[in-house]
Every structure is written in C-alpha cells, then in structure tokens.
C-alpha cells in the first residue's frame, strides 16, 4: 500500500518543522552584545547620548522583508554644525549593521528614508555623528509578525 494522505501530511509537517529548526539553529544571530560591539566599531569609545535623533519605524510590522524607515536628526546643517554620519544597528538580525549614511552640510536637512529587513521582534537603534564630535541616538522597539529571514529559509 502507498502512503495515506494522513501519513504524508504528518511526515511533511515533521520535515518542514525539522528544516525550520535547522535553519534557526544554523543562522548565527546578532545579540545585544554583538550590537554593542558593532556600535563600538562604528563610533569608537565616544559617549552616545539619547536625543536629537528620531527613528521612525512602524511599531507593528506585518512583514519584516521591507519595512519603511526614516531617520531624522535635529541639526541646522551648516558648515560648522552638521551631521556627518548616521548608523542604524539592530539586536537580532543575523548581522547587527543595517546601514551607514554619510551626509554633510550640503544635505540641507538631515533626513534619510529607506526600507529595511527585520528578522525578529527587537529594538532598532540609530546613532548620529555630529561635526562637533558628539554622538546621539534613538532606539525604537518594534514587533515583527513575519520575519525577514526565517520565512525565506526555504525557497
């Protein structure tokens, strides 16, 4: 006798579950510690203060594959006082770094939008480096329903 439909479904379910587990186990994930390491690599030993940066992300994300993100920094953007760089990092994506943006006084406004992938419910942090050597940050907690990475494990 061939396999019954029920047996097939049970087997298929088990296989899919096993594969999903394998994918989860194999994917090295960033942790809050690796995020801190990544931040240190980007900014050195400088003190990072909260404020002046605004990170806009939807609080509840249905699909982590393309999440609209806008970073705005309060700055007059003059030759003497401007934003030099903005770094975005995450806690639980496979890699902590998301994007590094380099601007200058010619930007006029310190506001950049893009679309990112988010693997898990986590906190996303944006750090701005100003021309006076100070660093400012903003952290936003997000809830991700459909992860960007695990769903893609099987294609």
């Amino acid at each position: 006798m061939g396999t019954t439909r029920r047996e097939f479904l049970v087997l298929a379910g088990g296989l899919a579950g096993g594969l999903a587990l394998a994918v989860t186990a194999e994917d090295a994930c960033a942790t809050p510690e690796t995020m801190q390491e990544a931040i240190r690599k980007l900014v050195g030993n400088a003190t990072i203060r909260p404020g002046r940066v605004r990170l806009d992300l939807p609080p509840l994300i249905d699909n982590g594959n393309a999440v609209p993100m806008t970073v705005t920094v309060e700055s007059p953007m003059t030759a003497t006082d401007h934003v030099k760089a903005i770094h975005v990092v995450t806690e639980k994506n496979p890699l902590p770094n998301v994007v590094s943006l380099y601007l200058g006084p010619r930007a006029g406004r310190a506001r950049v939008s893009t679309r990112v992938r988010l693997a898990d419910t986590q906190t996303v942090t944006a750090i701005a480096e100003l021309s006076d050597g100070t660093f400012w940050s903003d952290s936003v907690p997000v809830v991700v329903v459909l992860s960007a990475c695990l769903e893609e494990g099987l294609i």
Partner: protein
Amino acid sequence: MARAVLSLPAKARHGEVIEIKTLIAHAMETGFRRTQLGEPIPRDIITRFVCTYNGDEIFRAELHPAIAANPLLAFTTVATESGTLEFKWSGDRGFSLTESATIAVE
C-alpha cells in the same frame, strides 16, 4: 538587468532644499538563505551608493544585507547651481550602475 528610477525636481530655486529619491531593481540576496537542497545561496548585494553634485560628493551610503530588496534611498540636498547629479551603485560580483540627472537652478 538592473534598472534604476530617480525622482528629483528638474528646476529649483537657489538655496532650496530638494528631495532626491532613488530606487534600483536588485534582489539584495542576503547570503543567509538556503535552497531546498540546503545549499547556502551566496550573498549578492549592493554595498555602496554615492551621489555627487557636479563632481562633489553630497551623500554616501554603505548598505548591508538588512536593506530590503530593490533598495530605496531618499535624501535631501541644497540646490546650489545648475548641473548634473550622478548616482552610482556598486556591490558584490562586480555590480556597478551609474545614472545621472540634470537640474536647473534659478
């Protein structure tokens, strides 16, 4: 092949802050996915984007696999003089694409 879309005003007043939106068709393969046979799919992403205004760099971005497929970047610049803005994307496997746009500043 890759295709890019640019959105910026054709005319601007001197000193005006203009918004530039760029979108490029690219899969941004993360390098973390696997095929059904379990083989890892190699990373293939755009790693760098540079925008120059009459030859001077005004904006640069370093992208990582956490940027969504078909990367969108929207940023601003001050319209200083008439001329050409050049946009260059480069990345893995020797990927490179350059587009340009002209702007008239009054």
